[in-house]
């Protein structure tokens, strides 16, 4: 994944709570066996008036001009401002891939659903939790100021923009992996000996878990 140190970009405001991953990327697009090709179908049922299908040319779709992300002022936005419980529902990581491919590098919300939050960290999409008051203030600013931009600095854990500044929390390990663009699997495999040792104890203690393993390690 791409490293995330800091990012500066314009903000798009999606003013609804409980945005679920079925909305972020509808199920018909999950048939793909690839990690790419989802950007045109981000928020498909909201972005377009016609029904989306895999392989349909986005340039021939009927645009829903009432949907906020289609407003010209939000073209090129790379920070998504959202409300509570963003990313609830299905565990589909395709939701994160779609947001990234569309061009978002960061989602700011007062709260996220757990699985989506984890999926984001593992792909270099930074989920930033700010207080409800800060998020309310940002919605106000973004609605007022066309082209409003924020700078998200992971190292200092700050979000800053004209007339706005907030600090956010993130756990040290995901922060380290994000900043260096590191693969979490590699980091875990550094503990391979500990895993093997645990496994051998676990096998003694709860052999029924390993009953189908036979003698093979």
């Amino acid at each position, binding site marked *: 994944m791409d490293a995330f140190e800091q990012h500066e970009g314009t903000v798009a405001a999606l003013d609804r709570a409980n945005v679920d991953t079925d909305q972020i990327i509808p199920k018909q697009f999950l048939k793909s066996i690839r990690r790419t090709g989802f950007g045109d179908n981000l928020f498909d049922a909201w972005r377009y008036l016609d029904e989306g299908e895999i392989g349909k040319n986005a340039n021939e779709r009927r645009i829903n001009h009432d949907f906020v992300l289609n407003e010209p002022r939000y073209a090129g936005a790379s920070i998504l401002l959202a409300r509570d419980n963003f990313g609830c*529902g299905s*565990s589909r990581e395709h939701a994160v891939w779609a947001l990234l491919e569309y061009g978002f590098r960061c989602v700011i919300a007062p709260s996220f659903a757990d699985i989506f939050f984890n999926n984001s960290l593992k792909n270099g999409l930074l989920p930033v939790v700010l207080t409800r008051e800060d998020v309310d203030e940002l919605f106000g600013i973004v609605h007022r100021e066309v082209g409003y931009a924020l700078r998200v600095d992971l190292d200092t854990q700050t979000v800053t923009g004209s007339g706005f500044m907030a600090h956010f929390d993130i756990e040290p390990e995901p922060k380290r992996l994000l900043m260096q663009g590191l693969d979490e699997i590699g980091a875990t495999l550094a503990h391979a000996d500990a895993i093997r040792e645990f496994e051998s104890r676990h096998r003694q203690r709860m052999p029924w878990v390993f009953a189908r393993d036979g003698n093979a*390690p």
Partner: protein
Amino acid sequence: MAGKTVYDKIWDVHVVAERDDGVTILYIDRHLLHEVTSPQAFEGLALAGRSPWRRHANLATPDHNVPTTNRARGIEGIDDPVAREQVVVLDENCARYGIEQFAMTDRRQGIVHVIGPEQGATLPGMTIVCGDSHTSTHGAFAALAHGIGTSEVEHVLATQCLVQRKSRNMRIVVDGELPFGTTAKDMILNIIGRIGTAGATGHAIEYAGSAVRALSMEARMTLCNMSIEAGARAGLVAVDDTTLDYVHGRPFAPTGAMWDRAEDYWRTLVSDADANFDTEIGIDATTIVPQVTWGTSPELVLGIDENVPAPEDFDDPAKRELCGRALAYMDLEPGTPIGSVPVDRVFIGSCTNGRIEDLRAAAAVLEGRRVAASVTQAMAVPGSGLVKAQAEAEGLDAIFRGAGFEWRDPGCSMCLAMNDDRLYPGERSAATSNRNFEGRQGHQGRTHLVSPAMAAAAAVAGHFTDVRELA
């Protein structure tokens, strides 16, 4: 020192390493795989030159994409080439890495959360993960089970571990007797209605109380299945005789002396009397009536005797807005009795309600009755090939068919409509599945979640109706 919850106990025995910052490398006993969230994980594994850490920990089956008709043709029977490729790729990956799979033509194939328990691949005390949020289902066995994303699927394949931070403990105690005509589905919908779709975010839920103890294993699976709809990745029920009776004799379950040893341990999987729960909620089961969701989030739910709310009924501005949007999407007027709302299609199945007891409950309502002429389609989709065979042995298929239902082959089907089973724009369903999100069952489709008996009742009446009056 305070005692431990079931969740604490399972967590503690799976800790491989713990860092000072509280992040844990947690060992995973069982990994379930399906065709939709695994291909990119296998690809990542191959690109990194890695192979599965412990291949026998894995069990795979295709379920999301498979058609529920024309199964005699096997994979060739999948008309959609993109969906077909996904099932083919699962076959290839399982063959390449020696992972046990119940392939599409295997009679044991089915929804991953149905076949795990059915096979005894789900055992008490296990850590179980799958790239599907309804993995919480397996918590019914006092297992620590939750959904993961595709990166984590790859992580588990490669390391047999997950990097986790421990959740907080929540206990939901449901006491009293669940009234006639209400089920575990009504219980969980009622719970979600009370605490909201983010009410348990960051928590593992333990369901307890006399009403939960009285539930069968299948009913407990229904309950735990929808924990994610309350925001909890995991929900579980402590071990008791009901748990062990269900597990005993299943193909993957231990036997003989190993069973005895396992049972001694499994019996300890109850929360200690002095265990600490961060959040506790009490519910009186006797107050629960058959539930029907009316909106586009599972928390927007009513008793069958209630009316659709108005935005003004909510104090919280965010809820008012959610209500307004849901009314528009669902094409409902405030004040409408939910029992007067007509249905176009009826779907009985899914990892929530696709087991034999669910089919029996629906068949009991349908026996001697017919699906209303106004209903376009009514579909019964068993959760697995073995559930289907059992239902046929009991003659349930004849009851479904006789009532005008289509009797389908196993899969996720219209729960998420990745295959051809779906709603068309503007259509309204009575569905026994778990999500009523916009477009979930088809573009611009409108989903109402109910129990199997309530779905059958709606099919017969042509609109939602109180199943207690049909019995």
